């Protein structure tokens, strides 16, 4: 993993860039701090509680970036094993745990994508859409796959920014920190991503 996340003792990174607007989140009030302290003391019940809260989001992020459920499972597992191993060293206040979690998950996804490229495995071919109007569910599935393909076709950084902001629901500062960029850069990536998507999906009306 190239970029180290922040929040762990002795590991401070570039989560805040000079000249960016201040976040609306208060790192001192990290809602996960108590849970992490208990995990650091080896409390398995706290670990399970944290997973109940966070696993769907981490898994969803991995699934959207990797589009492979087995790889998404692997990434989610690795992320939470790191949490379990390193919770003792967590220092509240350096960064929100949720931001750290997203950053670790993102970096692991990027590692998997790199490996996939290195072994020159072609991306799985997109499935052929079922006949439109076959039934409502099939049509919805087809629309969802269209959106998925459109997002997947974005340049990598635009895709990551969009997934963090739209699907993970991170604030602008949290998404920028997870991506290791400034808020201004995030806004630029998001605007370009949305512009491309508007063109591709303009016929998808609510």
């Amino acid at each position, binding site marked *: 993993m190239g970029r180290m996340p922040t929040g762990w003792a002795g590991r401070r990174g570039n989560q805040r860039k000079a000249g960016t607007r201040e976040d609306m989140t208060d790192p001192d009030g990290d809602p996960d701090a108590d849970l992490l302290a208990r995990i650091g003391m080896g409390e*398995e019940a706290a670990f399970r509680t944290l997973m109940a809260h966070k696993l769907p989001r981490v898994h969803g992020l991995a699934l959207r970036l990797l589009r492979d459920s087995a790889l998404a499972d692997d990434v*989610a*597992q690795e992320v*939470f094993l790191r949490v379990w191993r390193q919770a003792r060293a967590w220092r509240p206040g350096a960064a929100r745990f949720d931001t750290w979690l997203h950053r670790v998950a993102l970096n692991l996804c990027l590692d998997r994508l790199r490996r996939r490229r290195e072994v020159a495995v072609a991306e799985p071919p997109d499935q052929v859409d079922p006949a439109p109007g076959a039934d409502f569910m099939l049509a919805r599935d087809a629309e969802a796959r269209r959106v998925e393909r459109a997002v997947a076709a974005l340049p990598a950084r635009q895709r990551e920014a969009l997934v963090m902001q739209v699907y993970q629901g991170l604030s*602008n500062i949290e998404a920028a920190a997870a991506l290791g960029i400034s808020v201004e850069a995030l*806004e630029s990536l*998001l605007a370009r991503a949305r512009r491309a998507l508007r063109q591709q999906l303009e016929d998808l009306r609510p």
Partner: protein
Amino acid sequence: MTPERFAALAAAYGGAIDRWPADERDAARAFREADPAAADAILAAEVVLDAALARWAVPAPGAALAGRIARDAARRRAVWRRGRLWLAGLGLAGALASGGAIGAVLVARLVPAGGAACSQSLTVLGAPVPSCGNAANWSDTL
């Protein structure tokens, strides 16, 4: 807030002002109240895109995944604790061994060859002590 900034925020964060940066929401809402037609015209296209993006839902991870992670974590902690015990044992054994070795070296270096150092110049019988470490001379004093 200027119309340009309102449009830039919509272009980046979508048609729901509630999802815009917190420090700009109030100003954005005020802009919308002041000129609803202009604001809604900007937001309309983004609302459509938001709805389209919302169609891509991903399945939740299976319950088995959480169980597998928890079991793996518990197993790793057990291995780590056993490893720590082994290391503590090895450390203790190493400390004992090195203590013994240091003690042996100190004895060998500090105690002169041939016997203990002499601290008195007379024997209990009042005879002068012969040169220390020369056992052969002890017979002369008897």
